[in-house]
């Protein structure tokens, strides 16, 4: 019990969404384990991952719900959208159909999350340049038109994977600082944890009271 229950000051909830086989779980795995899963079976329902990161000197625990892309899970996975502070929406740059479905994913996300939810568009598999089916420019335009952040990334090489997860967290943290994100709202997807100094103060107080009572 060296670090105590909270060695971070915030929890941010993320969801990862997008068509089947675009590499959502591989992105999660690359981010949490820094490894590429070459043989990645279809996710059942939802998979869960966490990692503690640092933004502006604050430790933040990311609680990431990676949803299955298969259609038969879609009705229930929608219940995981609620209270997400960040949504990573993924398509595969080598399969145009996964890009064409983005508006449907975006509609779901907008309907089921709150206005302050940060949506980050990821064009995965950018290591497969030879098989490219969606240009960077058109995806960038789609992102700009819809107010989304955007990168092309590769879960295989790790390129831009950290950036996508961390940039999302920075944007959420900025919203908190600006007061645009209400920490007390149940659906904000952010929990604030008592910081270490606060806990120390508490135990000091108890110590103080005890001393007073000893007379």
């Amino acid at each position, binding site marked *: 019990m060296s670090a105590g229950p909270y060695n971070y000051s915030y929890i941010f909830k993320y969801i990862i969404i997008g068509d089947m086989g675009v590499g959502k779980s591989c992105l999660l795995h690359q981010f949490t384990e820094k490894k590429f899963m070459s043989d*990645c079976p279809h*996710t*059942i*329902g939802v*998979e*869960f991952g966490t990692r503690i990161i640092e933004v502006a000197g604050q430790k933040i625990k990311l609680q990431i719900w990676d949803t299955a892309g298969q259609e038969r899970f879609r009705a*229930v996975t929608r*219940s995981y959208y609620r209270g997400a502070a960040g949504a990573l929406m993924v398509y595969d740059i080598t399969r145009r159909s996964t890009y064409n479905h983005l508006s449907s994913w975006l509609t779901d996300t907008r309907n089921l999350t709150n206005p302050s939810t940060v949506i980050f568009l990821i064009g995965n598999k950018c290591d497969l340049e030879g098989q490219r089916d969606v240009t960077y420019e058109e995806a960038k335009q789609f992102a700009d038109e819809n107010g989304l952040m955007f990168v092309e990334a590769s879960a295989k090489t790790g390129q831009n994977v950290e950036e996508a997860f961390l940039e999302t967290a920075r944007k959420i943290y900025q919203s908190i600082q600006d007061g645009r994100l209400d920490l007390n709202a149940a659906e904000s997807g952010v929990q604030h944890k008592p910081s270490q100094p606060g806990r120390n103060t508490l135990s000091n107080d108890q110590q103080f009271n005890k001393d007073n009572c000893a007379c």
Partner: protein
Amino acid sequence: MDDVLTETVPAEELKKFEKAYHEQLYKQDVTPKAQFEYAWCLVRSKYPADIKKGIFLLQELFRTHEEGQRDYLYYLAIGNARIKQYTEALKYVRSFLNIEPGNSQVIALETTIKAKMDKEGLMGMAVAGGVVLAIGAAVGLGISILNKKS
């Protein structure tokens, strides 16, 4: 702190899938999809009775609908772990891994279940320790009262 064994289904979601299932049940034409969606919500309920019902529905699906068996095994493991039937839960995990060894999602679930068992084992000990302390305190109090009387 949420994970796959502690997160709970929003009440209105559970109701929505319960309604869909019951409508089909009334017509005596339940699709595996409706039954699975309802069962998946049930095993994520905060009430053990719901979870048990979810397990029952998943077992039925497992026997009758071969196509979705890996999904049913996975949620049978989760449901059992959530009502602390860890041995049963690990049995389903092992059945899954016999078919798909190296499935990282299921290996992660196994780790989560074992961590929870360890934690509760320790907590059990902590409770026992607390009882010992309480008895010690009671004995101490008794002695001090006796001392005062004398």
